[in-house]
C-alpha cells in the first residue's frame, strides 16, 4: 500500500484501525484519506469504528463474584459424589439382574427374538447404543438444568461429576454388552427384556434406582420372578 491514488475499499478498510491509532506511514495515511474523501461507505465505516472505540472505552470493569477456585479445580475429586454412588448402585443392580437373568414383565409388549446368533447380538447392541444416546442426552439436559438453576459455584463440580458418571456408565454398558454376549444362549430373550426395562427405567428417573433396589431384594427372597 503506497502512494497509489486508487486504493480500493478492501484496502482502505483494512487500514482503518491503524489510521485511527496513528500507526500508518504518511503515504498510507494520505492514500486512505483520499479514498475516504470519495467513498461514503468507507467513511461511514470509519465513523463506526471511531464510535465503537468510544463506546468500548466506557465499559466499567466488573468485579468477579466470589467463587471457590480451589474447590473448583482441586477438591472436587474428594467430594462425596452422590451421583457416582447412585450410578454405581444402579450398575450393580443391573449386573445382578442380568447375571440372575431375572424376568421382569412389562405391559408395553416389547419383543425381540434372540436365537443367540450374530444378528441378534447386533440387535441388542443397537438397542444399547440407542439407550446410551438417550442417556447422554438426558445427562446433558440435567447438566443444563443445573446450570440454569445456577447452583452457585457448585455448577462446575456438578459438571465434573456428571462427566465422571457418564464415563462410568459408558464403561458399565460396555461390560454389559460383553456379559450378555457371553451368556447368549437360551435365556437371551428374557435377559434382553429385563436389561431394557432396567436401563430405560434408570434413564427415565434416577429415583427408580431405589425401586430397583427393592426389586432386587424381592428377587433375592423369592428367586426369580417379579
Amino acid at each position, binding site marked *: 500500500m503506497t502512494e497509489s491514488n486508487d486504493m480500493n475499499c478492501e484496502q482502505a478498510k483494512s487500514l482503518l484501525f491503524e489510521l485511527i491509532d496513528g500507526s500508518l506511514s504518511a503515504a498510507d495515511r494520505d492514500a486512505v484519506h483520499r479514498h475516504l474523501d470519495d467513498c461514503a461507505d468507507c467513511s461511514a465505516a470509519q465513523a463506526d469504528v471511531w464510535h465503537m472505540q*468510544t463506546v468500548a472505552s466506557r465499559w466499567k470493569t466488573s468485579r468477579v*463474584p466470589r467463587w471457590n477456585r480451589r474447590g473448583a479445580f482441586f477438591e472436587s475429586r474428594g467430594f462425596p459424589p452422590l451421583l457416582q454412588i447412585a450410578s454405581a448402585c444402579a450398575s450393580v443392580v443391573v449386573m445382578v439382574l442380568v447375571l440372575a437373568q431375572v424376568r421382569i414383565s412389562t405391559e408395553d409388549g416389547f419383543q425381540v427374538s434372540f436365537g443367540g446368533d450374530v444378528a441378534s447380538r447386533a440387535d441388542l447392541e443397537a438397542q444399547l447404543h440407542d439407550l446410551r444416546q438417550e442417556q447422554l442426552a438426558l445427562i446433558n439436559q440435567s447438566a*443444563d438444568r443445573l446450570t440454569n438453576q445456577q447452583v452457585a459455584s457448585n455448577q462446575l463440580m456438578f459438571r465434573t461429576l456428571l462427566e465422571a458418571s457418564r464415563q462410568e456408565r459408558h464403561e458399565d454398558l460396555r461390560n454389559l454388552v460383553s456379559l450378555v454376549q457371553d451368556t447368549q444362549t437360551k435365556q437371551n430373550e428374557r435377559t434382553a427384556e429385563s436389561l431394557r426395562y432396567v436401563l430405560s427405567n434408570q434413564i427415565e428417573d434416577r429415583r427408580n434406582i431405589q425401586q430397583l433396589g427393592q426389586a432386587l431384594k424381592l428377587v433375592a427372597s423369592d428367586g426369580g420372578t417379579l
Partner: protein
Amino acid sequence: MFARKTDDELIGRALDGSERAWLTLVRRHEQRLYNYALRMSGNPDDAMDILQDVLMSVYRNLDSFRGDSKFTTWLFRIASFRCTDYFRRRNWQTTTLGDDEDVPDDSGHHEPEFLLSQVEDNEGIVHLMGLLPPEQRQVVELKFFQHFTFDEIAGQLGISPNTAKTRLYTALSRMRAKSELSLAS
C-alpha cells in the same frame, strides 16, 4: 512470590503440579475473562458459568499450550470455542421450548431513542452487543475490547483475516442500522 512470574513460568509450575501457580494464573486473568463473558452472554450468571467452563477447559488442556503464541491469545481462543458451545446449547434450549430464536429476547427493553453514541454504561453496551448474532459479537468483542489483531482473531475463531474484517464491518453497520432505525421510528 508467584505474583511476579510470567504466564509461561506459572504454566510450567502448574504443569509440574503446583496448585498455587495455577490459582495465581486464574486470579490474574479471571477478571478480563469474566467481563468478556458478561458482554458475550449479557448476564452475570451465565458469565460466571462461562468463566468457570473456560478455565476448566484451559486447565484440562494446559499441557497442549505450546507457548508459540501469547497465553492470552490462546486463552481467548478457548474462550471463543466455549462461548460458541454456550450459544449452541442456548439456541437448542430455545428451540425445544418452541420459541422463535430469531426474536431477540431483549427487544422489550429497546429504547426508541437508542443511538450508538449515546451508549454510556455497561447496560447499554450489553444491549448493543445483544443486537448482534453471536459470531459477529465475538469479532466485535475480540477487536474492540480485547484489542487483538485481525490475524489473531482469525486464528482464535478459525476463519481467515479477511472474513474477520468483513464480519466486523458487517457488525458495525448492523448496529448503526438498528440504532438509526429505532431513532427514525
